[in-house]
């Protein structure tokens, strides 16, 4: 199984970006083989700054991906996947001069993406990802992301294999 850490960027611009601009995000993920293909679970945090009087929020995407790793030649591999998750948005709304209240909204999100893994040391890989995500709010939010990071692969311990079976 592989642990990954990435820096993420939101790369597209649309109606949503009239109201918010995105900052750099961070992502952690864990991938492992599944009965068919591989699965990857992850958490991505990304800030969005509101324009004019719109409040800022930071998003936390808890996601689950399923895909199939395809080897390209001797070492690099590509992992196309389908993703589904919960896109949670934390807002801070000013109630009064002194008082802020945190408002959380969450919505189902789904998308597609591809990850390229390039090994550079025995258990380490460079991880490059690009993906498209649609957040299923009443007015849909369409986002594209690009991430770069590293992964570290370990052998799944026997007790964990037993638990997951």
């Amino acid at each position: 199984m592989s642990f990954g850490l990435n820096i993420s960027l939101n790369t597209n611009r649309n109606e949503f970006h009239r109201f918010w601009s995105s900052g750099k995000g961070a992502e952690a993920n864990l991938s492992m083989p599944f009965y068919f293909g591989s699965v990857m679970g992850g958490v991505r945090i990304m800030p969005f700054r509101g324009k004019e009087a719109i409040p800022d929020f930071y998003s936390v995407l808890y996601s689950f991906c399923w895909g199939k790793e395809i080897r390209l030649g001797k070492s690099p591999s590509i992992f196309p996947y389908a993703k589904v998750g919960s896109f949670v948005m934390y807002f801070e709304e000013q109630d009064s001069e002194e008082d802020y209240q945190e408002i959380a909204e969450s919505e189902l999100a789904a998308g597609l993406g591809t990850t390229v893994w390039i090994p550079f040391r025995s258990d380490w890989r460079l991880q490059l990802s690009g993906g498209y995500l649609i957040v299923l709010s009443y007015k849909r939010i369409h986002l594209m992301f690009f991430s770069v990071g590293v992964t570290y692969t370990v052998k799944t311990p026997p007790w964990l294999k037993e638990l997951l079976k």
Partner: protein
Amino acid sequence: MKRSVFPIVMAMLLLVFARASSSPRDGISQTITAEQIQSSGIIRLSDIFSLAEDLRVSTTAGFHWEISLNGLFPFQKQNWIVMLDGQRINLDLLSTKSINMLPISVDLLDSVKIICAPQIHDGEFTEAGLIHFYTSPPKSGFSLRGRNTIGNETGDPGPYMFTPYRSPNVDRLGPDYSFSMDYGNTRWNTRLGLSFQNHYSTDPAILKRNPGLEGQYTRGQMVSPYLKLGFKVGSSENEITLSHSTSKRLPFLERFGSDLLFLEPFAREIPTHSSLSFVGISGQLKSAGRFGIGYRSSFSALMLDKPDQTAYPALDWEMRTWNSRVEIHTRNSAFQNIWGLGLNYHDLNTQYDLKSPHDLSGQLYWQNRFRISPKVLQNSGLWMNIHGDGVGIKTFVSHQWQVKSRSVLWSNLSYSQRLFSEDNNLWYWSSRGYDFIGQNGVKFFPAAPTHKRILFSLDLGWYSDLNQWITLDVAAALRSFRHDYFDGEDFQFTYYRYSLSPEISLEAGQGGTIVLGKGGIYLRWPEVLSQRVSYTYIGRIGGSRLFRQAWESVPAQGILYQITFTPVENFSIFSLIHYRGKSYWPAYRNLEAQTNGEYSPTVNGFFDWRLVMNKWFWKRRLWARVVFRNIFNQPERYHPFGAVMNLRWHIHIGFSLESFAG
């Protein structure tokens, strides 16, 4: 109409690989197994209805559900019987039944049997159908079970709530929790359980026409503790059950809210604090071979109370019910006989001035099972309900003929007389003085029916295992109703104050005929796949005005397609596609013009696609499930005033530790 990108590819994949998933049927009943319940993503007991083939459903907010079962009754008449482990439980909430008030959670279910035709089942005559929930018996040693469910419905405003694109929030789902602890040995066993259900009724369709409904009353909670004790005394096996389900605020829980009860004759929601207390005892004394005695006795108290500080009217309803049966079983090589004696007693505690708050009836019945020949089995019975208002006679005879080794023809013929008192509903008690409707602004003419309602019913069917992989079944039914009663309503709508019909009258002497046709296929190949597809059609032949109107609201067509893919032992994918046909609600015929099209008396047909992924861990002691419902994001609505249920998802996690330290 909103669309989802989701599942087209998944659908194609599943259809390529898929085969039928079957639910055992014997023509007259359908049994839903624990395996189906676990793999199909069911959260609450009402979700069981989605697996039933002969059933149509209606709901406004998604917590209380009305059903129409196999052409036996329309949504106006919720006379079906609910049983739990051999005990009848009264869940009558005026004009509806609340299955989610049963004190058990879905993970305790061993099976659910749906009786779809009139006959005698466990001491009850099922002229209006019966749904029997069976819980799994505690295993030897200690066992623990728990489950947590969270979910959400898509279509919230998200960040756009701060922009000109703001839209209303839609419903949250859950969280629901349950926990149970069992102990069993050779002589006795016990189960202690607790379940919580949270339900939000915040759909714009409900809030907009209830502008006075405060936020806290749109959130409902149901807490249900449950205790069951089984024990043997000599050769007898006995069970005691105690439970209490309540939506009231509990001192040890920082929760508040109400149970929003949609009262159809009122065409509005009324916040209530509903509670159901139940005590039951049952048992069987077995002797060597040919003779046995069975008994059951239960008490239930169902209360509808007014939440504090609400301007809504108080229903002021506390129905206490005693229900008892004693049976003698005899058998020989050819016959099995059951001779039964029963008693039903209702006592309505209310401040309204009733003619009499008490209602007592006695039952006598006989049931016979006789193997006419090696290939023909006959089941018949006679049932009498004796009440101060008269005697209702009910009878049935059914046959099963094994035409070939894998082919069965079956039939069920029934005649029943139903007394007004057997309905035990809002109309019956209104005729006896429960004047809630009259004292809340409605002219009500509670004319009691003067005749017994007559139902003549005929079911015919055939099922056959064509080979080891394919089973076919077809059936038809005829139901002829006479001397029935319905309420005539004609709702007018005005924004900012709820509106209702200025007059409601019960009209007796109604009748008509319903015909049904249905068919289905089970496919079980290859081993990893099972499929079941079924189609049902309900049609009317003639009928009086109100009879036709009542049945117009029941969708004529229904298709159910279920697929289970189990490639490896601890992982499965379940998919269900349900088509619900269009329906028309004449009582709401004025809505479209009066609401500028916002509400309509026509509820359009839709496809509901559900996808469930199940994974078990640690030798099935832990499990996780992801459920997506209404993947096509069709406007899933069941009632002209009802919520529109968008694409939604749930995550369930749970554990089951069985038979340790025993």
